[in-house]
């Protein structure tokens, strides 16, 4: 199997250098317009417009050996600081494939730049340069990932750095290289372990290759599966550490119901530790906004409970509503932080033309962190 895999990888490299056997290509134009601010009467304009071009080529159907790439140009304007940005990025550049060994076993692999996420979607969720291999059997799935963040565009990927970081790039450039880290992860999952429940464990390490000395380590255990035909759950907890000197926790529980065709209801609870007892403040590797507050806080020292629902009408309009309550716990006390709601409607006019409109608000205990946001988006693929 190892020799076969090595042969396939060599073939992939050779094929990528040879004339493409069959080429598909296309593009996408999308735009996001926001008006946001502390009060409805003082909203500031934010605009993002982007054009994407992509190509893909299937070298071998049996092995699903495929080359794919996506590049983009984006213009951003933010009235809050009157800033303009022109951003060029390579969002996808990968060779991927699947080696099937028998009916139920397979090795999936990908090399290059592609999206990567940890199980929580909070610690690490971004495009990244690296290599991924997944071994799939009916009883166990095992995957490993290794890569580098150095060549990523920091306009599109925000890696959390420590206070006083040596990383201080010029954000006026169209391409800003990101801080240098080596992310690597190992994941083991046992699907259908008992009653279709899945038990999974995952470890991620992010070794700092800059002078910040800010390496981070995470270990996650998750249990998920159906409770009945229309009710699903997932429970996960993550232990985090900075330079193996601290211990923090991120826990997440999700209950999802599908009460009717086209409808779903989701209850979510998240706890990210602050300096709570023996725990230190949790901090992810990449930036993830935890709530709708004006200062866009990260998942650290907070508790959030939220309920969301979605319903699809006329097969092409999806309505989504969400409400939540946020508490903060930076130290050993818990205090109320705010309430939030969001409503959006997505209309798929055609499969290649989509528009959406939405509104959200955050009512903070500290009114200077209130936020109202109105957003309209459009996307057209060709």
């Amino acid at each position: 199997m190892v020799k076969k895999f090595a042969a396939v990888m060599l073939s992939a490299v050779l094929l990528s250098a040879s004339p493409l056997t069959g080429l598909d290509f296309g593009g996408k134009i999308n735009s996001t317009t926001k008006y946001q601010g502390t009060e409805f009467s003082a909203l500031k304009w934010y605009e993002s417009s982007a054009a994407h071009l992509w190509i893909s080529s299937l070298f071998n159907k049996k092995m699903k050996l495929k080359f794919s790439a996506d590049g983009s140009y984006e213009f951003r304007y933010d009235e809050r600081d009157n800033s303009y940005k022109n951003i060029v990025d390579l969002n996808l550049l990968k060779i991927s494939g699947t080696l099937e060994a028998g009916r139920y076993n397979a090795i999936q692999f990908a090399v290059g730049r592609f999206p990567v996420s940890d199980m929580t979607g909070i610690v690490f969720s971004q495009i990244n340069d690296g290599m991924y291999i997944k071994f799939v059997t009916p009883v166990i799935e095992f995957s490993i990932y290794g890569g580098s963040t150095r060549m990523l565009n920091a306009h599109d990927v925000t890696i959390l750095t420590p206070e006083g970081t040596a990383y201080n790039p010029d954000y006026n450039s169209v391409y800003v290289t990101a801080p240098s880290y080596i992310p690597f992860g190992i994941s083991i999952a046992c699907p259908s372990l008992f009653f279709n429940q899945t038990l999974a464990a995952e470890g991620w390490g992010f070794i700092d290759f800059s002078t910040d000395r800010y390496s981070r380590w995470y270990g996650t255990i998750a249990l998920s599966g159906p409770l009945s035909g229309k009710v699903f759950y997932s429970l996960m907890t993550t232990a985090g550490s900075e330079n193996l000197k601290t211990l923090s926790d991120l826990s997440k529980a999700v209950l999802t119901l599908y009460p009717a065709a086209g409808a779903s209801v989701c209850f979510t609870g998240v706890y990210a530790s602050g300096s709570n007892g023996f725990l230190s403040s949790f901090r992810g590797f990449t930036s993830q906004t935890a709530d709708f507050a004006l200062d866009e806080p990260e998942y650290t020292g907070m508790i959030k409970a939220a309920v969301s629902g979605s319903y699809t009408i006329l097969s092409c309009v999806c309505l989504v509503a969400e409400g939540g309550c946020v508490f903060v716990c930076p130290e050993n006390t818990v205090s109320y932080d705010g309430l939030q709601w969001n409503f959006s409607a997505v209309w798929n006019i055609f499969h290649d033309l989509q528009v959406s409109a939405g509104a959200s608000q955050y009512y903070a205990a500290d009114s200077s962190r209130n936020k109202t946001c109105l957003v309209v988006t459009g996307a057209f693929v060709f």
Partner: protein
Amino acid sequence: MIILAAVFLSALAAHAQTAGFVTEMLAAYNADYGQVSYLSAVYQGFVDETASYDEAFAALKKAGQLPAAVNKTDTVTMSGLSYMMAELWPVKGGLMFRVTKGASRYAFRQFKADGIIPVDADPSEKVSGTDVLTMYTACQNKYGSK
């Protein structure tokens, strides 16, 4: 395979397709434009079932229902087959499908969006006779009742 052929035969019974054609189609490792032209032309009544592949191909060419620059013996690609199948059914289609009047690449993408062909299909992929009949059956199920 037998079920597929049975479904296909029953679907075409009203048009008196020959079982011989279906058998030949099922056996084809690579289907050609002559074979798919016969299927399309007979279904639409451009030619009768005794017509040759040459006559069916010529009839479709006259009707402007063939992809550009293809010959009767060329192997059909997934996008070429999508273009020809989109002529058979009332496919409403996306914006680009409508603007380009069902061009091959957008017929192919429309069929992906509608679940007619797999999402990992490639437009230049050569199709077998079974692929042709599978797509025909899927189109009939999706668009046939409209």
